[in-house]
């Protein structure tokens, strides 16, 4: 499947990674190389094969509903790129 400039723009938007327009061509060509590599799967017959998400055939363990975490707000807010005494701060969110 050939990639287009439009695909690159869409991917950039979805992944929230800015791609400089001067780099678009090179990004596109390298991605195309990878797509070509993974397209070699397409010839494999996978009818009636269950997808495998996990290496081991085990099921989800459950946690008891008990509070184990304590308030570390001050430490965590300090690690934020921008924060006040209560919140992490970001540019205004438009709804």
């Amino acid at each position: 499947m050939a990639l287009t400039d439009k695909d690159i723009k869409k991917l950039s938007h979805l992944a929230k990674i800015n791609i400089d327009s001067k780099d678009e061509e090179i990004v596109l060509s390298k991605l195309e190389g990878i797509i070509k590599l993974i397209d070699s799967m397409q010839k494999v017959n996978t009818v009636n094969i269950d997808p495998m998400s996990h290496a081991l055939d085990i099921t989800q363990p459950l946690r008891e509903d008990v509070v184990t975490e304590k308030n570390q707000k001050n430490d965590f807010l300090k690690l934020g790129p921008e924060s006040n005494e209560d919140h992490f701060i970001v540019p205004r969110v438009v709804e």
Partner: protein
Amino acid sequence: MSWDIVIGIETHVQLTTQTKIFSGASTSYGMPANENACLVSLAYPGTLPVLNKEAVKKAIKFGLAVNADIAEHSVFARKNYFYPDLPKGYQISQFELPVVNNGFLTIGDNKKIRILRAHLEEDAGKSVHGILNNQTGIDLNRAGTPLLEIVTEPDMNSAQEAIAYAKKLHNLVQWIGVCDGNMQEGSFRCDVNVSVKPSGSEKLGTRREIKNLNSFRNMEQAINFEVNWQIEQLEDGNEIVQSTVLFNPDTGETRAMRSKEEANDYRYFPDPDLLPLKITQEDIDDIRSTLGELPEVSIKRLVEDFKLNDADASIITSNKKTYEFFQSLISEGLDPKITANWIVVNLFAKLNDNELSINESTINKDQFVLLIRRIMDKTISNNAAKKIFDLLWDDPKVEVDQSIESLGLKQVSDSSAILPLVQEVIAHNQAMVEQFKSGKDKAFNALVGQVMKLSKGKANPGQVSELLKDELNKV
């Protein structure tokens, strides 16, 4: 041209657990910002989700309460999108294989509203706007709170039906103890999908989803506004664009959201950090045994065992607190019909006037019991009881018996005291007696009224009627 309204509802129900769905952080409401935000809530590098047992149990419990199938295997997926209050950049939710499938609730006259699915997922945090100019504050206390998202088929055809479903669901989730039902705090949030189509048409119209509905009143207003707006658009030859709209309670209007919706390719895939959730028949049986009696069964019981009428029975079971209150009164030996009547008519009137829920009622139960007992033993009349109830509502310390005394509301039930009054009224109201004799029943009531007046309201009205009947026969 006439139009059909088609409504489906997605409800986000916060499950009442001590901790978040994937971490041991507390879910307590109303904490200062970010105090419940742990490493996992903040999506720190290297942190991993571990599923809360209680959240799973509550999801199953709900499924059983709506006669749904409980999936033996269900899977958690990632819904990928960027938003500042979504710390991981994805929400863990069940997508292809939810834990609850194919249930239903009935509303009104036995109309079935099908519940397509209910799935477990995590709540997002909160964005606090206008902290500073052009800035938004992020509070991640709510991030990771367990949610059950309950999705109906588009089976409702009016705002009334939608409200009836939502209220029924709201009652049920509290009844079975999976949600506190607090709509103001966001514990029970409905998104309503509304579309219209030409009457009788098979093809569904394009829907718009109304968000931000935190009361039933808002929901009704929003649906009505939205329906009218859509019909207007279509009649003007415009097309409806699928979108998400916000309801503004101040204007009563809905408006399309500006963000979020553009290019929502969520790239769902199974979360590799979580394994398939397996639920055994044994798990299901265990939870079923904790389910208790559901409202539908309670209604039947009220009608069959206590001979309540359907209307009273459904109001008594409209929430669990009321039902439990009723049950506790009955267990004191009170008459079910009188008790039901007092709850439905008098107590609810007070609650409604004061915009309170039954949970917030401050009525002194012991005195309320005594009050009904005094009606039953004919110490006071229903009217006198209302006077005392007013006092009791205002001041829980009021004592019923003392008030009966001090207000002189004790009813006279002694025949020898009432008979002279009856005879006096007959003697002085010959015209009315004649009318009664000639077949006018109304005259009888007038005569009763005269006797009551003469007794200053204290005579037992039942006894007055009996004695009056006897005396009139003698005339």
